[in-house]
């Protein structure tokens, strides 16, 4: 359970306290309260366990000597010296992820629409793209853009090569999300639009796409979170100085990869926690609406 969720739970709990009326409660209300209490208890215990696990993890790397067990000693001096350098990769990680997800979303939408086409070349292009990308490793695709293209005289700036590789890859996978989104809009919606006299284009942009996109937003959020982590693969090429690249650079140079990788891991973890929280907020807002 991510931490922000625990805070949310605490807030709901407070609301329940302040709203308690003075009038005696009915049987149903009492049962409802009991269920609520049980659920709150469960969540509370989960939160406590989380804190315990977190403390245990910290203890594991604290370098203290308890009951004859020596835990792992991290070089705090190294951490202090390189914190700013590694954190400096955050911006690049976020930038490459944002640009890639935008490219991926565009490609995924086009590929999904292509799958709906009755024009064979368009349908073929869409399935060909998805098949080719999903049939090869992401790691290979990244190196293809960094190492294979220069052989042909095409030298892309590091960031753009990374964005192209990640965007193309995620676009192929995400096309399934958009395809599901488009097919979640019933045939009746299209018929109602056509009966009003809408052209196929207007039917798509006014009626089908808005509903399909709403359906696709939560899974797209998941893909974005996954992408922030997969962006680390781009570091292997050495041209994009994001989190992972910086961590491996200083770690290897000073033989302190343990500290450097733990620091990078913490940054990724916190980033995904924040993103997961934002995504759960968006999801809650969407489900409140009007499906």
């Amino acid at each position, binding site marked *: 359970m991510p931490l922000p969720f625990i805070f949310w739970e605490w807030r709901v709990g407070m609301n329940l306290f302040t709203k308690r009326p003075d009038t005696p409660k009915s049987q149903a209300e009492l049962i409802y309260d009991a269920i609520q209490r049980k659920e709150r208890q469960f969540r509370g215990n989960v939160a406590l366990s989380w804190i315990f696990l977190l403390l245990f993890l910290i203890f594991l790397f604290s370098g203290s000597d308890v009951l004859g067990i020596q835990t792992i000693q991290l070089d705090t001096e190294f951490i202090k010296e390189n914190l700013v350098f590694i954190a400096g990769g955050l911006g690049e990680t976020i930038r490459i992820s944002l640009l890639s997800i935008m490219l991926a979303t565009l490609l995924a939408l086009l590929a999904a629409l292509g799958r709906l086409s009755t024009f064979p070349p368009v349908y073929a292009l869409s399935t060909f793209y998805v098949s080719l990308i999903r049939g090869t490793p992401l790691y290979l695709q990244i190196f293809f853009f960094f190492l294979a293209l220069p052989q042909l005289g095409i030298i892309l700036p590091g960031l753009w090569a990374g964005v192209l590789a990640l965007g193309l890859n995620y676009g192929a996978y995400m096309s399934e999300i958009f395809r599901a989104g488009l097919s979640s809009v*019933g045939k*009746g*919606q299209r*018929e*109602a*639009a*056509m*009966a*009003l*006299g*809408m*052209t196929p284009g*207007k039917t798509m942009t*006014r*009626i089908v796409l*808005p*509903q399909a996109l*709403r359906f696709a937003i939560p899974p797209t959020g998941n893909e974005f979170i996954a992408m922030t982590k997969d962006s680390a693969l781009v570091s292997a090429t050495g041209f994009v100085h994001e989190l992972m690249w910086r961590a491996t650079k200083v770690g290897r140079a000073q033989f302190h990869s343990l500290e450097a990788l733990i620091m990078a891991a913490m940054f990724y973890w916190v980033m995904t926690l924040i993103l997961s929280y934002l995504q759960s907020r968006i999801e809650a807002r969407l489900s409140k*609406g*009007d*499906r």
Partner: protein
Amino acid sequence: MVPIIKISNLDKYFGRLHVLKNISIEVQPREVVCIIGRSGSGKSTLLRCINFLEEPSAGEIEVDGVRVEGGEKGKRHRQLIRDVRLKTGMVFQEFNLFPHMSVLDNVIEGPVTVKGMDRAKARELGEANLDRVGMLFKKDEYPNRLSGGQKQRVAIARALTMEPRVMLFDEPTSALDPELIGEVLSAMKKLALEGMTMLVVTHEMGFARDVADRVVVMAEGELIEDSNPDELFANPRDPRTKALIDRYRTGER
């Protein structure tokens, strides 16, 4: 009188299945025609052929002077189909309201995007039509907050706001809980009294008997009977019509 709908020699195949067999029928302006028949008799397909939600395999459809040949293709054909759709309003069994739009936005979507009507004017017209079906008080709600009967009344208002010459109803009460059928039928009855030309595919024998000017009976893709309701319900000529009426009588819906 010049008929407002004229269907001539209409044929429709689904693959090898011959669902409409050489249908010809005319509807006069202000007439209310109910189409009844067992499920699978082709009555919904006939209705959906009129605004080309189903493309007829052969034959001809004429709505208010716009004539379209079935089974054709091309740009001109598509334009004619859109012209026909502008003259017909359609109400579906499953309502098919747009869930991402408020009630009022549902109603003005057609006039604004299809006819290019000014939003303020469309809103005025939309509110008037929502009022006509008694749904103005829910204009800012989203469809998922409405009951089935309310949804169907909004769907009627949506079709009306396109100011069609003819209204097509495809089993408008079949998806409703029994206690919600009445409000939809009375909205339709009001519309009939106002002089709207209506074609209604329905299982509601009461509505057919009380409101329709003509009742058409279909069986196995053919028109087997076409007369005024009093005569049809008193002396059904075809044994299949008699069976249909008897079944609903004993069921007494």
